[in-house]
């Protein structure tokens, strides 16, 4: 379909794309096995007359004694009810099955693809009409309908192809429609309209290239379905008597006493052929699907990797003596986290980060995206994805080393000691449970003695009230909340078990400025009211300046600068901090030209040698490219990792 549109592109590009695709596909074991299985059969079908030991319908020489002979040298797979060689019939049967499957699927794919594309692209009434019709066709049992139709017409191969083809398009239409809808709603289609492109251009250049892969996967599955249907029809006695397909072979064998004679070969061989085709196509389809639409094969319940301690303290830790004196809740020492992937060097996502957090203190954790902020926070409670591993360091929470606890001991600290406010998108709350229910769940988990009656309800209402949500919203589901309210609900949930430390991971990103201000004010209030210690993760320096006591600036997984908030803004020593501040718009100086930091943060699996900021640093010199700077202590509460500050105070 529509392949004419691709002619306008340079040819070599498409070869390159195909080669690239093959390179990826080649690694998919399922897909390759499936392709091999199908390939073998296609070859058998094409060269059937050359391979088959006997002619396709040589019954003339058949004697009574030839019927249902078990496998022998003359007939490798035995003979059937008419004394024919089963191997030869099997080989010729391949042709029938593949022809019916391919042609019927072709009809289905054309109809389903076209209808799906029209419905998805046009939307509105057309879509409604087509999809309603599809739904009806989907609900009507297909096999009985096919049986009726074939029984009422002449059971010829052509009729079977037409009937199976005409009824097999429904899933394709649904799949293509939803993919078309998804592609159509993407911004690049809107952009193409903005450029002035018409519908034809948009369909051929933007919709089809993204629908095609799914259509290919679908086609593979439709072929397998058509092969199955044909053999079923033949087995039920509705096959073309002149074309001996596998289903027809089974029909004869089953109907003519193979069972009672015990001629298992006559029943097994054709069936294995069908399974071979269908399994091959299914594996191929699965393989294609996995390559075209890759999904992670791990999830949040995949067991994490064990903590290891490499005890390498080559860089100075960010801990100062006098900080020990305060009421320290959280003491992170030389924490390092790697992401481990098979066959690749580990990505050093966090390296040698140390900080402390006192009661009632608010620390800002700042850096561009991809600098390891979230990894650092998740590693504190060992909530890393399964590829993440703590490779060094300790996390002391009230003198207890969290890296040494087992999962059950850790589960007690989680939420009741340290809780997390996740980014307030819809996804951090379970969509099918009410907000109140999700809050009380945490209470029940951590305060087993808490009375489970009205007082539990009252506690939930109290928590919601604390964050400014009306009590009648308790029984509502997250999707009934606005974005700002969901963030508040998340905060209420984080406070449910009276934790001492709350980690807020970009809680205001993606919220409007006014809602953002509301949330910041709320967190600041709660800190004062409840004496919470808060770690506030953000890429927004302005937010940090407004509410934080101290700031840890991260770059490329390491501490760039760690100081109290006034020092960070007024006497920054690390060039990265300095540049970040210059890039931030300052309303008090509206005419000031903004500067940006050229380049991008390093990829954590391809870190530069020496200082990680060196490639973007305005003050870079030779040593930076060779030697990674240690964290220098510049004051009681001021650390920076830059060669330039070495020896200075």
């Amino acid at each position, binding site marked *: 379909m529509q392949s004419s549109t691709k002619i306008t592109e340079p040819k070599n590009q498409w070869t390159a794309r195909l080669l690239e695709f093959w390179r990826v596909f080649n690694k998919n074991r399922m897909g390759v096995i499936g392709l091999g299985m199908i390939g073998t059969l296609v070859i058998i079908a094409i060269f059937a007359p050359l391979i088959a030991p006997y002619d396709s319908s040589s019954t003339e020489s058949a004697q009574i004694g030839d019927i249902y002979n078990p496998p022998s040298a003359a007939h490798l797979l035995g003979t059937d009810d008419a004394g024919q060689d089963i191997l030869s019939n099997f080989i010729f049967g391949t042709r029938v099955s593949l022809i019916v499957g391919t042609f019927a699927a072709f009809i289905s794919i054309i109809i389903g693809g076209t209808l799906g594309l029209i419905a998805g692209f046009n939307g509105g009434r057309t879509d409604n009409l087509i999809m309603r019709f599809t739904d009806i066709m989907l*609900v009507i*049992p297909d096999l009985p309908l096919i049986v009726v139709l074939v029984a009422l017409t002449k059971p010829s191969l052509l009729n079977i192809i037409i009937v199976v083809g005409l009824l097999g398009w429904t899933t394709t239409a649904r799949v293509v429609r939803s993919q078309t809808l998804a592609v159509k709603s993407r911004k690049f289609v809107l952009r193409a309209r903005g450029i002035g492109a018409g519908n034809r251009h948009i369909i051929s250049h933007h919709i089809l290239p993204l629908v095609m892969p799914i259509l290919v996967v679908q086609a593979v599955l439709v072929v397998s379905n058509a092969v199955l249907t044909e053999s079923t029809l033949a087995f039920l006695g509705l096959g073309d008597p002149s074309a001996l397909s596998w289903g027809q072979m089974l029909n004869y064998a089953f109907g003519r006493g193979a069972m009672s004679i015990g001629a298992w070969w006559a029943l097994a061989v054709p069936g294995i052929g069908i399974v071979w085709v269908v399994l091959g196509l299914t594996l191929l389809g699965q393989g294609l699907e996995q390559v075209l639409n890759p999904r992670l094969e791990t*999830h949040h*319940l995949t067991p994490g990797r064990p903590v290891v301690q490499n005890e390498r303290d080559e860089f100075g830790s960010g801990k100062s003596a006098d900080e020990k004196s305060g009421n320290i809740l959280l003491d992170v020492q030389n924490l390092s986290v790697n992401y481990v992937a098979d066959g690749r060097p580990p990505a050093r996502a966090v390296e040698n980060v140390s900080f402390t957090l006192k009661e009632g203190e608010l620390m800002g954790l700042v850096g561009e995206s991809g600098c390891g902020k979230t990894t650092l926070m998740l590693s504190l409670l060992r909530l890393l994805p399964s590829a993440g591993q703590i490779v060094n360091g300790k996390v002391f929470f009230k003198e207890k080393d969290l890296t040494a606890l087992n999962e059950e001991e*850790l589960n007690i600290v989680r939420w009741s000691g340290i809780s997390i406010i996740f980014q307030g998108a819809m996804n951090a709350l379970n969509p099918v449970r009410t907000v109140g229910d999700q809050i009380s*769940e945490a209470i029940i*988990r951590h305060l087993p003695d808490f009375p489970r009656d009205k007082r539990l309800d009252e506690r939930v209402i109290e928590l919601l009230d604390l964050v400014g949500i009306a009590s009648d919203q308790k*029984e509502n589901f997250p*999707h009934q909340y606005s974005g700002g309210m969901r963030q508040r609900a998340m905060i209420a949930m984080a406070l449910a078990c009276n934790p001492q430390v709350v980690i807020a991971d970009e809680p205001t990103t993606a919220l409007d400025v006014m809602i953002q201000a509301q949330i910041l004010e709320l967190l600041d209030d709660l800190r004062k009211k409840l004496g919470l210690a808060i770690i506030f993760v953000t890429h927004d320096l302005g937010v940090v300046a407004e509410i934080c006591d101290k700031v840890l600036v991260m770059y490329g997984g390491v501490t760039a600068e760690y100081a109290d908030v006034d020092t960070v803004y007024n006497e920054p020593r690390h060039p990265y901090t300095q540049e970040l501040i210059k890039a931030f718009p300052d309303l008090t100086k509206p005419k000031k030209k903004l500067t940006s930091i050229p380049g991008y943060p390093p990829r954590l699996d391809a870190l530069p040698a020496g200082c990680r900021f060196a490639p973007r640093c305005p003050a870079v010199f030779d040593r930076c490219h060779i030697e990674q700077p240690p964290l220098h202590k510049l004051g009681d509460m001021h650390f920076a990792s830059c060669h330039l500050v070495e020896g200075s105070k």
Partner: protein
Amino acid sequence: MGVELFPRPHNLKSFTTSRSALNRTRILLRKIAWALFTILFVIVLNFFIFRVLPGDPARAGIRDPRLKAEAIEMLRVRFGLDKPVINCFESLNPVKLGSCNVNPLDTQFFIYVRNLLQGELGISYHTNRPVAEVLGERLWNTILLIGAGQILSIFIGVVFGVFAAWKARTSIDRAAVISSLVAWSLPTFWLGIILLFWGSKFGLPLAGKATPGASTYPLLQQWGDIARHMFLPTLTYTIIFMAEYTLIMRSSLMDVLSEDYILTAKAKGLSTFQILKDHALKNAMLPLVTVIAINLGFTVGGAVQIESVFSWPGLGLAIFEAVARRDFPILQGAFLLLAISVIFANLLADLTYTYLDPRVQTE
């Protein structure tokens, strides 16, 4: 208070309650209306397939040499074969298809609909018994087989799927996926044949629903007899459909377990079991319910094959026999009954989904 696995919307007390309740009634009514329309469509389709395609059953029936003259006359009147097929509705129909200027109530189509409403589906050519009577008992046998098979395959499929997803990338997972893919590729009727072969070695009953003469047994023994007969067909059914449910449950649960709210649950200190039970299972089941609803039509295809192999006296076997005997009234009736049953079952599954997913009620 314990954690509610299925939050019931009638517990809601806020403003949204009334709105969602209203919405729910509207959705319910819309779905029922839609099911009725689909049934209407099937009835019309059924009429035209059998009238338009070459093997016109009524006429073929009249030509059946086994019928006596009076019987033919009776059939002609009952089906109105002397009447025009439909009213052409002249104003809508410029090519004047069909006969015009006739009373629409005096056409074959109207008679067909009227007969249907009276439960009149014609007379079997083969047994000369009314189709409705023959199929009535068979419908229950099919429902018994499909019901047992569905319950078993859903249950086992969900359990396997949950284990496979939970233990993703382990050997348990791989074994579950590969065996499901293989089972999914088996032609239903062929698996039936293989199991028949295998079952014959153990002396299991191979055909029918009951041993001849079993109706004289005591009730308990009768049931035991039916259960023995059901064993192989149900096993076949379960293996075929369990595979699909395993794969769907696995991929659906994999998606859910990668969601942020699972990380939230983990951060809350919930145990793996609690997370699976309270946060993942219901969310992952929702897509499965949709698939079950969509698949019902397909399921019936499996039943036709299984009943044919095991001579299980259901609608599927009726279709199989009717095809062999060219007994069109039975074929027409069986198809109609199957289609309508599937539409009802689909409606049921659809309504379950509406009930289970709180997001549907306030769309």
